[in-house]
């Protein structure tokens, strides 16, 4: 075809091209006109909208965490405070060789080698300019040590922060609780607006239960930033002026507790680190004066952060130092329930004040050769109700248990608050258990176990078997006895204080009702018998009570950890320490005008009157003003 190509008409071709070029120019102008029209739309008509948007792009709101409320004891002494502390921080993007840096920090003992993988993961996950905390509180020595070596650690520095501090260490670890670093569950649960910028939250005790009051509200400030959230210097004053005003954080409320540091310390020291708990309260109000669980731990470890090995040591210790025995530990109450059962027996007519039993050291049900033993193998001889309480005769209670019946026992013990939560103002207390026919029916599967057996009533009469109570419940019950039936909700917080105005919201004592006993005379007798436990000639705890400069009432208890086979002699020395009986004791004082009620449990303490009662007395001495300075 190209061979036959006609002669080209250059002029016609040029004319055609000029036509096309003009057309192309028109199209060009149209297209660029389209862009210009768009620009006019954006830059003239919508200018204000986009100007506002670009302004918003430059300002980031950053949360300012509030200062956590302080915790005081009943005399205004500090239990939990916030201390400025230097913490070691690392900014990932400023560290050239992360692994090398962490290793060298470990080499000078600023961090633990075990934690290097955790820090590596942390610094790789977040925004690279955001600091991660390597150590929460540096000692003066560590600060000095690091300061000289700082040039070797680019990107690592110490920063001042407020850190929760518990000046009394282990003393209030269970009562006041502790704060710990927020975990993923906390983050899900807590209001993100209030907790923006917060690193720690209450984990246990008052710190946890009153988190809402203690925390406060986050404030915020405006930062001029770039698209990646990095703060940039505010070099344009025009921008600073147009910033919305910042909002200061609202500090958390201060808490005034009912606890008394001195009483708490005496109780703590008296337990001597054994596994046990002491709860002391004012029976007229329900104010808790001391709430101790031992062995304890240093709550500062949680506030500051500890190594994995430190934590697993605490968690895995067989003595369970993290376990708050005072409100979570449930124990067979043993003989400590005898005063309450006595009132029930008198009120229901299962016994009377003159009825006597001949205690021969054991009791047998008709048609059954099983021996229900008394704690005193040779027996107490003839005893009435008063003697049965004062000498803690088991056989007397075995004998009347049949007439009293499990349902009455359940009824009266429940009225004293056993088997249900006391309503204390810290979360998580255990309800314990007061068994009944109904409970057994609902909680056992096979037919034989659903039945209530007479033998179970017999052992229930001395607080054994299924029955379980917490030290807190026993203290509350002791207070109710002291108050002749008037019950007050036990509580730890006396007042909530606004730190700015100093205004206090007082927590009024809450009366929970009375355990109604128709005949006031029954109270006199039962409480009199409790008095004779301490100060009577044959009282089980007379060794303790006789030394007291005030009149006190009490009841010891011993709870079996294992059941002793028939005919087997109970030999304390040969028993493994952990298989020995728990020692329990409830008491109040002064007898005529009760101001303090105490419950003590010493796990595997063997003897309620011998081991637990002296602890209760030490606590009372301190509170009633007879304290021995040596216990400090």
């Amino acid at each position, binding site marked *: 075809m190209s061979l036959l190509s006609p002669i080209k008409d250059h002029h016609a071709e040029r004319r055609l*091209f000029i036509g096309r070029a003009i057309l192309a120019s028109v199209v060009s102008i149209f297209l660029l006109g389209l862009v210009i029209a768009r620009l006019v739309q954006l830059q003239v008509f919508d*200018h204000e909208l986009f100007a506002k948007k670009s302004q918003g792009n430059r300002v980031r709101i950053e949360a300012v965490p509030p200062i956590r409320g302080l915790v005081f004891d009943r005399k205004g002494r500090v239990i939990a405070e916030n201390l400025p502390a230097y913490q070691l921080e690392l900014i990932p993007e400023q560290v050239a060789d992360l692994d090398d840096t962490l290793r060298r920090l470990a080499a000078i003992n600023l961090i633990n080698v075990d934690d290097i993988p955790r820090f590596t993961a942390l610094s790789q996950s977040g925004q690279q300019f955001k600091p991660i905390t390597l150590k929460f509180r540096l000692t003066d020595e560590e600060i000095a040590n690091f300061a000289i070596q700082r040039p070797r650690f680019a990107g690592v520095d110490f920063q001042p922060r407020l850190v929760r501090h518990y000046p009394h260490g282990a003393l209030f670890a269970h009562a006041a609780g502790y704060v710990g670093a927020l975990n993923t569950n906390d983050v899900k649960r807590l209001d993100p607006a209030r907790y923006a910028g917060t690193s720690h939250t209450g984990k246990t005790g008052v710190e946890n239960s009153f988190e809402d009051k203690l925390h406060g509200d986050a404030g915020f400030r405006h930062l001029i930033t*770039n698209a990646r959230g990095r703060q940039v210097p505010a070099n344009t004053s025009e921008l600073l002026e147009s910033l919305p005003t910042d909002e200061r954080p609202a500090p958390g409320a201060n808490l005034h507790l009912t606890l008394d540091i001195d009483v708490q310390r005496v109780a703590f020291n008296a337990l001597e680190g054994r596994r046990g708990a002491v709860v002391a309260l004012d029976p007229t109000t329900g104010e808790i004066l001391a709430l101790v669980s031992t062995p304890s731990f240093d709550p500062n470890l949680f506030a500051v952060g500890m190594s994995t090995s430190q934590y697993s040591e605490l968690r895995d210790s067989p003595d369970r130092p993290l376990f708050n025995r005072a409100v979570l530990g449930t124990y067979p109450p043993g003989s400590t329930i005898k005063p309450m059962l006595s009132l029930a027996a008198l009120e229901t007519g299962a016994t009377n004040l003159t009825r006597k039993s001949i205690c021969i050291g054991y009791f047998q049900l008709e048609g059954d050769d099983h021996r229900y033993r008394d704690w005193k193998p040779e027996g107490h001889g003839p005893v009435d109700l008063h003697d049965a309480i004062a000498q803690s005769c088991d056989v007397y209670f075995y004998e009347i248990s049949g007439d009293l019946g499990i349902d009455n026992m359940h009824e009266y013990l429940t009225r004293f608050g056993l088997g249900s939560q006391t309503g204390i103002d810290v979360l998580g207390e255990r309800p314990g258990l007061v068994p009944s026919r109904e409970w057994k029916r609902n909680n056992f599967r096979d037919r034989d176990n659903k039945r209530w057996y007479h033998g179970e009533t017999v052992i229930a009469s001395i607080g054994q078997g299924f029955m379980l109570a917490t030290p807190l419940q026993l203290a509350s019950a002791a207070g109710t006895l002291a108050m002749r039936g008037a019950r007050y909700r036990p509580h730890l917080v006396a007042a909530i204080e606004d730190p700015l105005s100093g205004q206090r919201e007082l927590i009024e004592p809450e009366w929970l009702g009375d355990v109604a006993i128709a005949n006031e005379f029954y109270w006199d007798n039962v409480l009199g018998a409790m008095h004779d436990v301490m100060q009577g000639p044959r009282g089980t705890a007379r060794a303790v009570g006789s030394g007291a400069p005030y009149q006190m009432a009490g009841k010891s208890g011993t709870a079996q950890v294992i059941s002793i086979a028939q005919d087997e002699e109970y030999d304390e020395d040969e028993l493994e320490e952990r298989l020995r009986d728990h020692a329990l004791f409830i008491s109040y004082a002064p007898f005529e005008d009760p101001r303090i009620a105490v419950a003590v449990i010493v796990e595997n303490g063997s003897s309620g009157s011998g081991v637990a009662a002296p602890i209760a007395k030490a606590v009372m001495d301190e509170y009633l003003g007879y304290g021995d300075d040596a216990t400090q």
Partner: protein
Amino acid sequence: MMRLSETQRMLAHKTAPLRSFSGLVRRLNVDGPLLGGLLLICAFGLFVLYSAAGENSRLLINQAVRLGIALVAMLVVAQLPPDFLRRWTPWAYVGGLVLLILVLTKGDVGQGARRWLDIGVRFQPSEAMKLAVPMMTAWFLHDRQIPPKLGHLVVIAVLIAIPTVLIAKQPDLGTSLLIAASGIIVIILAGISFKLIFGLGALCVPGALVLWNFMQDYQKQRVLTLFNPDTDPLGAGYNIIQSKIAIGSGGLFGKGWTNGSQAHLEFLPERHTDFIFAVLGEEFGLFGVLVLLVLYMFVIGRGLYIAVEAHDTFSRLLAGSISLTFLVYVFVNTAMVTGLIPVVGVPLPLVSFGGTSMVTLMAGFGILMSIHSHRKLLPH
């Protein structure tokens, strides 16, 4: 004939003393107005780039060096007479195709695409095709009847389609479409009937549907995002939203040089490359944008004038295509940054930071200059 004219010209120049700047310009076969317009655009571009790159002088020097290389390329190409270019066109085209095939089989992978070829220097053969395709199309029509016959059009379509498909497979959809456009522009300038243009335009609809199926997911996403950028403000729509904020907040006269918060606070992505137009809009406002667009229009206008003044079919069609392809670059980039069309990776010519495309562009303008300065000596 060719040799003779060249000798004549050189003799003439030798005898004429260099009395003025225009004399030098003429001697270097440079078109003064075109060079002036281009230099103004480049200078303005460097100015904007300095701000867009975060006042990074290293990057600025880098770009200035590239500009220098591009200008040298332009000068070199301007010395090549159009007839020489035409004779070598088929070889350049075939060579380009070979390189494209090599890229697909042996090329370096970068950012998920196979676009670079490393033969001593790393370069993109598709850049060479930006000139080779319109040259080939113009070459084909040079000896043939204008307006072209249908049979010729089929041949041209194949000539355009081969490199287009090869580049689209890299994948580099933006470049392949631009290259197809540069070829199609030649046909339109060659005077094919409007019936055919609209007919082919109508064919674009099923063509677009086929294209949609060929698109990568990210390309589909770009198209969808255009229609509603707010559906994905932090993802695919982010660029468009932020560039609209940048331009819109610039207003009439802008926030001032280096004061654009969108660019300097790093909200605007790709701010020194594909989205530099948004920085210009933010810092210099509508006024600054119009100045740049007027400069572009001047360069395009001058290119079309050179095309009209050209003395043969090849020169005319090639000059027209180069000028109008430049317009397509300008339009596609500015329309994309202002959110009129989907985001395709087309830089703002002579202003965006980047090397290879600048050399190609300037070489194209070198062809324009060659066409213009060599025209009077061609016998008619």
